[in-house]
């Protein structure tokens, strides 16, 4: 039943559009006698847009020779296999490309381009039929997938091998070695530890890294029975940080030592937050300040104020722009990747350390790519060694997105 109604509708549309098109052509035809039409567009090509959900057909054509002086624009016409052409879009002069995202998948369409002149429309030839097909997997990204697979595989592989008892060597990381000592000092002096997790929300991985480090720091704090102060600028961070500290106190066997007010929300606004943190620093004089997470302009204010109250400061961020100020004003700075390594390193859990080894595999891949790529490039450019060209092409294929 439905099919019949549809057919009927189609037939109706077809009749109407045929008559309309016929009129257009007829009018154009009459006008041609007196005034010339613009030259038509050429080489209309329609093709499936690859690696999508079967939603788009791309149409390309060559400009009309009269573009842009003597034309008013283009019209894109579309038809199904045996159907009539419908105008689906009007474009401005200068366009040579149209993405038709209003297609049903698995239905073939053909396209035609009309050039609008003062006196009517001149039509191009028809394109070949094109079908929008969907693909389940974006094979254009095979190399990304490959490297991701190798990298994640090696991270997981090292974690498993660490679990089975293999000893893994990780070099000392200065700032992290100092962390326990810094907490200890605060305990001795009877002053709190200030923990600033950056100013971004939980949807930034630096904040996630900061929160996982917080877990380890809070554990040491709970063991030493010292105090931690943590003003935050995001409500979600507030929630996560409270859970984290609570868990650390519980696992240290002192759930009664935990207090909700250790973490406090200030405001989402960057400098409102910094102003308040400055106040806390000056009033409560923490012995140790930890700035770990995503920092922006506030890094300088925080580090300077921390300096003026004589606190031990350890900073870590993956924002290169803020690193100079931390490097200049803090005792230790975790640069970029070291921030992400910190929580694994601090946990001394072999499984976690395994993931650091995995990171190193990633670096080896990158370094290998750099080394082979530059060597091949040098040979092929400087001495025109022909054999290196294919290595170069291979490297380019391996490290280029489409």
């Amino acid at each position, binding site marked *: 039943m439905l099919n019949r109604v549809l057919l009927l509708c189609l037939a109706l549309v077809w009749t109407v559009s045929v008559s309309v098109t016929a009129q257009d052509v007829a009018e154009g035809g009459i006008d041609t006698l007196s005034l010339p039409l613009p030259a038509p567009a050429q080489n209309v090509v329609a093709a499936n847009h690859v690696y999508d959900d079967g939603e788009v057909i*791309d149409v390309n054509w060559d400009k009309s020779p009269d573009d842009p002086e003597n034309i008013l624009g283009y019209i894109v016409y579309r038809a199904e296999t045996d159907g009539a052409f419908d105008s689906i879009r009007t*474009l*401005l002069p*200068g366009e040579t*490309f*149209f993405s038709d*995202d209003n297609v049903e998948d698995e239905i073939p369409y053909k396209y035609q381009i009309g050039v609008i002149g003062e006196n009517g429309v001149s039509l191009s030839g028809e394109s070949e039929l094109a079908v929008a097909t969907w693909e389940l997997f974006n094979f254009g990204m095979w190399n990304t997938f490959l490297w991701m697979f190798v990298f994640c595989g090696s991270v997981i592989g090292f974690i498993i091998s660490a679990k089975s008892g293999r000893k893994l060597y990780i070099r000392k990381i200065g700032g992290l070695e100092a962390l326990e000592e810094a907490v200890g000092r605060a305990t001795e002096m009877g002053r709190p530890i200030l923990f600033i997790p950056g100013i*971004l929300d939980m949807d930034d991985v630096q904040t996630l890294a900061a929160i996982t480090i917080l877990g380890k720091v809070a554990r040491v704090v709970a063991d030493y029975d010292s105090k931690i102060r943590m003003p935050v600028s995001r409500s979600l961070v507030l929630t996560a940080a409270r859970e984290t500290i609570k868990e650390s106190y519980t696992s240290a066997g002192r759930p009664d030592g935990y207090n909700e007010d250790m973490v406090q929300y200030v405001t989402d606004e960057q400098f409102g937050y910094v102003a308040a943190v400055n106040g806390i620093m000056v009033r409560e004089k923490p012995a140790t300040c930890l700035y770990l997470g995503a920092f*922006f302009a506030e890094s300088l204010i925080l580090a300077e104020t921390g300096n003026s109250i004589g606190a031990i400061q350890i900073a870590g961020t993956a924002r290169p722009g803020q690193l100079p100020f931390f490097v200049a004003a803090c005792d230790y700075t975790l640069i970029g990747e070291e921030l992400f390594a910190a929580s694994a390193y601090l946990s001394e859990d072999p499984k976690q350390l395994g993931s650091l080894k995995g990171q190193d595999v990633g670096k080896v891949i990158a370094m290998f790519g750099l080394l082979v790529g530059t060597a091949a490039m040098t040979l092929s450019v400087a001495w025109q060694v022909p054999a290196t060209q294919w290595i170069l092409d291979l490297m380019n294929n391996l490290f280029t*997105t489409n």
Partner: protein
Amino acid sequence: MKTKEFIVTAIIIVVLLLCKFVLPKPIQFSPTISWIVTILLGLVFAFIFYLTIKGKPVERRIVFLLVGISLVVPFFMQFKLPLKISPEVQQVYDKLASLPPGSKVLASFDYDPPSAPELQPMAEAFVKYAFEHDIKIIMMGLWPQGPQQANQAVEAAFEENPALRDQVKYGVDYVNLGFQSGNEFVVLRMGESFKSMFPSDLNYTPYDSIPLLKNVSNFSNIDWSINFSAGKPGTVEWIQVAVDRYNLPMSAGNTAVQAPMVYPYLNAGQLLGLMGGMSGAAEFEKLTNLPGKATTFLLSQTFAHVVVILFIIIGNVAFLRSRKETK
């Protein structure tokens, strides 16, 4: 102590009120006076240098005061400065100048008033140039205040060149889509369809009834894009999503803080040209031949840089000397 503070406050208020109501305006120094002021500033630095080397470093407040003075004084001076164009800015300009009339440009204003001193001059020069060369602009913002900054830039262009007011039509030559929250996810969805992210423009006109947007469904219909960015979300997010996934040709204007982080993308060709900070803005103003605020402030900027460098040098000379003595 209290009386001293009271006196300081009173003096500041009186001076400010005098400036507001009594002083003839605007103030401009003649070249001779400009030189004298500059030389006086130099002498103050020489004195600080002497004090620091003698082991009596000056107070923080003196440093603050000096910075303040060297930023303000050049406002009233009239030195002409030659300016060299850096290749990154040239690239932005070349890209813009190569666009044929009628091209559609997507401009994202991802900043707020605090960063406007650096980015607004770029935006104004860009908008003016585009209007004068019949380049169509589609404006939007990933920051809530971005679209207002865009409107200000348009207003500035009209004020500068009143003829444009009649020539340039909203909806035909430019459109302001407004702000949409969601950071890079906004960009991601624009990759599929602009309309799904911006059902209407800033004035609540439906997307489909705006003539300029008739043929714009997603990035594939955009000829070039420019992004004025002061942080996150900004240029990096645009590159990660719009450039890397949807191949949008893009240039950017950044605050100077952000600029160094963007250079690797520039070198990788993910970004076509970059204007960094106020000096980048001044260079762009020079290229487009539309001098504005950035050109005016270049002198203050120069003074400020020299002052910071002098402070570093003074601090380090004293430091090296004291180290030598302890050895």
